């Protein structure tokens, strides 16, 4: 095997790992879209908010310290304790469930039956709102998540593969964190599928996704299911937030990964969980490969737009995505 080929393989593997990260965000989109027809632009900000909350709770920060200080003239910022990671994660989940309830109670309950595009715009408003609340609660400085997740390249894999393509090949460099993310993503998808297949609420969720009115008529509470779905999406956002936060710090740019998840969804189809995974992998791989082969010729940083253009070209030929339900229009 030539060295060039091995480098290409390395690029591809790294692309796959990056794709897993995109898929994690895309999953949350699919959950909400299937159950309520809402295209939730705020998913990325939810990930940011969840990660911020987790970091804030672990550090023992006082929520809204900044605004309290500004109004009362005090100078508080920390409680002075550190919360263990497991407890902090549980508390964050409680916060996300509360958030799901609030969103359902105060926003989307009043928007039932509106056109999808109105709902989409409402989630953009929600994204702004949540971003502002996150900053107000925990401050806008970059935070690190000290969860003890492994960092850096995997030495083991490098040692295994060194010298494969001749003496100038130093082995595959693959981030350990990406590997953890892959395992977590697999577990997450497996548990989501198990939840929706084998539990009472999971079945109810699928019924709602199939047909709102039929679900209502057999006694399923739409309100409860929607809160459940938003909570699940909040949980997925927390997982995505932990992974991305551990990778590049908890900061505003995290919310921009939501935008990256959009082409992933367009490729995979909005209604399909496997689609979200496959779409993420294709985008992650394609983007790294394009940057590796063509990017250097045109000045680099093609990762900013490649995903969108790929999705655009793809959609022209297959508007419903790879696994999406066929779009049928009636007059």
């Amino acid at each position: 095997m030539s060295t060039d080929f091995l480098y290409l393989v390395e690029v591809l593997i790294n692309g796959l790992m990056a794709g897993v990260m995109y898929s994690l965000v895309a999953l949350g989109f699919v959950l909400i879209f299937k159950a309520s027809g809402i295209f939730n632009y705020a998913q990325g900000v939810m990930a940011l908010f969840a990660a911020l909350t987790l970091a804030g709770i672990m550090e023992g920060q006082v929520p809204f310290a900044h605004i309290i200080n500004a109004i009362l003239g005090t100078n508080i910022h920390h409680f002075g304790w550190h919360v263990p990671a497991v407890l902090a994660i549980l508390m964050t989940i409680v916060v996300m469930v509360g958030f799901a309830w609030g969103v359902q109670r105060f926003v989307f309950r009043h928007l039932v039956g509106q056109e999808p595009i109105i709902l989409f715009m409402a989630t953009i408003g929600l994204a702004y709102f949540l971003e502002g609340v996150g900053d107000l609660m925990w401050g806008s400085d970059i935070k690190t998540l000290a969860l003890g997740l492994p960092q850096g390249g995997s030495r083991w894999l490098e040692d295994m593969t060194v010298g494969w393509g001749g003496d100038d090949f130093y082995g595959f460099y693959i981030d350990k964190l990406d590997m953890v993310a892959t395992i977590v993503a697999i577990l997450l998808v497996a548990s989501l599928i198990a939840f929706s297949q084998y539990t009472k609420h999971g079945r109810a969720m699928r019924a709602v996704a199939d047909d709102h009115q039929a679900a209502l008529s057999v006694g399923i509470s739409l309100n409860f299911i929607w809160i459940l779905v938003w909570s699940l999406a909040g949980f997925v956002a927390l997982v995505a937030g932990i992974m991305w936060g551990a990778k590049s710090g908890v900061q505003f740019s995290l919310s921009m990964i939501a935008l990256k998840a959009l082409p992933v969804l367009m490729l995979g189809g909005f209604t399909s969980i496997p689609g979200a995974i496959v779409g993420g992998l294709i985008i992650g791989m394609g983007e790294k490969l394009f940057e590796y082969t063509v990017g250097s010729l045109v000045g680099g940083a093609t990762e900013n737009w490649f995903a969108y253009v790929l999705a655009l070209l793809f959609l022209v030929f297959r508007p419903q995505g790879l696994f999406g339900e066929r779009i049928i229009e009636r007059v």
Partner: protein
Amino acid sequence: MFYREAGDFKTSYAEDNQTFPIKFDRYRYWLVLAVAYLVIPFMINDYWANAIFVPFLIYAIAAIGLNILTGYCGQVSLGTGGFMAVGAYACYKLMTAFPDVNIVFHILVSGGVTAMVGAAFGLPSLRIKGFYLAVATLAAQFFLVWLFNKVGWFYNYSASGQISAPERFVGPFAVTGPNAAPWAQYMICLVFVTVCAVVARNLTRGTLGRKLMAIRDMDIAAEIIGVNPLRTKLTAFAISSFFIGISGALFFAVYLGAVEVGEAFGIQKSFLVLFMVIIGGLGSIFGSFAGAAFLVLLPVALKFVGSDLMGWPTDLVSHLQLVIIGALIMFFLIKEPHGLAQLWRVTKEKLRLWPFPH
């Protein structure tokens, strides 16, 4: 009492077809124009021009443009920032390539260039609908910004990668560059806004506007009654981009003077203009003005209340601003999906009956 058609007799078709059929509206329209042209230029100073009037007028043009596409034709676009960048860079290239030509032509031609780019990115709209299209326009946004960042030809290979507007004159008065007087900047924007608004208003209430609305309401049905969807959608993209290009050119040349593309025309700008259209009112020219005014004034007002009156730190105020804008958007979508323009319409209906409610 004053606000009604009764007693205002129309004696020709032209009169019957006019934009403002009610006398009170006509007087109000002329009054607003008179204040805008004859009073404000003499009162304006640097702060008012830069903080409020010039951005308001420029955003109003962009909002009119996006409103034609999103409000009238129903195609949601998140590429506004990218198209404004096309207008700005086209204007810059023209200004530096043909220094002797009047800047007004440059701005109009930049609009034309943007219209062509917009129509090209509008091509997929025939196959892709709804928010699939919204995401597809993100491709335009990111690709265009990347292009202007990477290809040196667009910024004349300047070391900083920025573009900055050279000084240009309309008659004897500088309108761009550091020596431009606030009133001159205000006036050139005002003239463009007036022309754009009149053109847009008349386009949208004629044949074209009806075709756009037919496509918006149901494209398949529109096709059956003889509206060519490809042509209509591309026209909508072209017209909308024309206005957005003009606003981008003005934004760069008159308002900012120097521009770094990712900062001035990033995705945030696309959302800002979209919010203006939503809050102002989808499918209403007046709404574009109302939305632009609202979102330009809101940060200024918040800054005034938060920083100057309460003495809060600026970052806190900017976070609050995000919360308030987000909450307002959700509030408007819940309470009044048709925006400020609808409130105005309701007021007019009430005025018509006032003071007798039945």
